[in-house]
């Protein structure tokens, strides 16, 4: 019997040994904190750590790769560290508004899933053309929107998509979109196609299949349509359910930093900086027809 007792003790001990490391739960700062650089709830004190994808695509990220950076720039991709491209420029304007210097901004590359995985984050927020939806807001806290985005269809010459002007006309086409994007949602909810859409791990692979002629068109964020990814912009889509789609920054749930960021976004909106950055980095051609 002694051995049995000893056995139980060992079993219990092994189980306890798997206990989580005790973390001091300091994540939830008081909501009434000040928004000074020293007192904000930051992942790394004195530094604003921003997460985005790698590669980082134009026109959201641009410029020549900075020495020592993980990002590689090409004709379709850029380096967040450069301050070029809409999101990069917005990030530095936002940081400046919040009181950070340019050197106090740090970027890390993450797979998309990490921006909303539960648990402590190794960044302050994710900035990756993330559309705000109610479902997603159950998993993360969003900042206020920093860009109103529409979706557009691009296609190569010779595709049956060229010349189509109605949503009904798109029904029988093989359309593609990157996974997890509202572009895919537009195909499913607005076009409601008879052909199953092709879903790709990222924009790159979707465009490869477009070039290979395996799909008739790719749905992308409107500003992406002007980036020469395909021969023609077929048209843009009305917003899903009539609701304007917006990009927001994604924070860990309950992160008190959101209110400070929102203050800064509001300031950038009211002083015209946001609009000026959009005009500078994004082509917003209003002549692209809307599918009816």
């Amino acid at each position, binding site marked *: 019997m002694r051995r049995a007792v000893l056995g139980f003790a060992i*079993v*219990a001990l092994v*189980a306890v040994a*798997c206990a989580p490391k005790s973390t001091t739960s300091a994540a939830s700062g008081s909501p009434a904190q000040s928004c000074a650089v020293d007192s904000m709830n930051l992942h790394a004190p004195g530094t604003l750590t921003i997460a985005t994808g790698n590669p980082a695509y134009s026109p959201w990220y641009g410029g020549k790769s900075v020495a020592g950076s993980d990002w590689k720039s090409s004709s379709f991709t850029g380096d967040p560290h450069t301050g070029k491209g809409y999101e990069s420029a917005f990030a530095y304007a936002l940081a400046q508004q919040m009181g950070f210097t340019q050197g106090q901004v740090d970027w890390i590359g993450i797979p998309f899933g990490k921006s909303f995985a*539960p648990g402590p984050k190794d960044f302050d927020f994710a900035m990756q053309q993330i559309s705000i939806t109610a479902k997603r807001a159950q998993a993360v806290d969003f900042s206020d929107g920093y860009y109103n985005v529409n979706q557009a269809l691009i296609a190569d010459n010779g595709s049956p998509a060229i010349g189509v002007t109605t949503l009904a006309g798109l029904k029988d086409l093989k359309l593609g979109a990157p996974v997890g994007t509202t572009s895919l949602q537009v195909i499913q909810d607005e076009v409601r196609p008879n052909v199953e859409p*092709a879903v790709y*791990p990222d924009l790159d*692979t979707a465009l490869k*299949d477009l070039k290979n002629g*395996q799909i008739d068109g790719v749905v992308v964020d409107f500003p992406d349509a002007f980036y020469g990814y395909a021969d023609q912009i077929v048209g843009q889509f009305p917003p899903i359910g009539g609701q304007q789609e917006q990009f927001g920054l994604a924070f860990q749930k309950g992160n008190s930093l959101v209110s400070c960021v929102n203050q800064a976004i509001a300031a950038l909106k009211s002083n015209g900086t946001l609009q000026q950055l959009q005009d500078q980095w994004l082509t917003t051609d209003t002549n692209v027809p809307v599918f009816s």
Partner: protein
Amino acid sequence: MVGPGSSPEVYFPEDGPGDPRIPPGGGSRRSRILGGDASQRNVWIAVASTAIFFGVLTIIVVRSPGWPEVKQSFFNGQEFKESFPLIVRKFVRNITIFCVAEVLVLAFALFLAVLRSLPGPVFTPIRILSAAYTDLFRGMPTILVIFLLGYGMPALNLQGVPDSDFFWAIVALVLVYSAYVAEVYRAGIQSVHGSQTAAARSLGLSRWQSMRYVILPQAVRRVIPPLLNDFIGLQKDSALVAFLGVTEGFQQATIIQQSDFNFTPFVALALVYIVFTIPQARLVDRMIARDQRRRQAGATL
């Protein structure tokens, strides 16, 4: 290189009496799990020990600081209910992929293994080719082969070359898994004692006939458990075709995960896989046990 079908003077490892992996007389299945002779007291200790171990583990997980968040994003009932039927529907596509691929793999790999087992110096280039193939495709991660074929071949724009992602996904899986399965077959062929070939040849069977009617039937029967193992591996790797834009189970789970920011669809898919593969794993166990019994009974094969 010496194949099993070559001259009988060559030494071949003795065909052992039983499978060394399983100790003889392993006892009933029940008592093996519970550990030792199943006296009443030991059963109770085993039950209590198991209960304490898993009980304490559960309490630790559920009371961990991050549990509410983990529960919300990995074990979300509502999300599960919504995603499960969609995922199952797309999993049918995985079933199609790995069933079609498995049939082709079994045939192609057998062909490769026989080529590699051809005796005589004349066939050296063929043996080299077959070995090179196995080395090449066993040496590359499956995902690379899928990417290279899936995005490379359609880009060639060749007349008559299909450009369906589905097609290339299956081709890639067949190429990779044939390399593994060919090795399994070869092990089976080499495990058949050389005297079998000698006996067949002395009865007047040609080399081909002795391979076809004497060696292969014994070899294949011996390697059925490892073949099934590779089949289970293939089933799991069918998720990799998602990277070509084929919406199968994994891609469907990813779509929901990224649009809802919730990981529950992956848990749902994991469940589908487990329900699918565990019966097969048990089947392999039973086949090994049956094979073991038959050998111990003294039956030749």
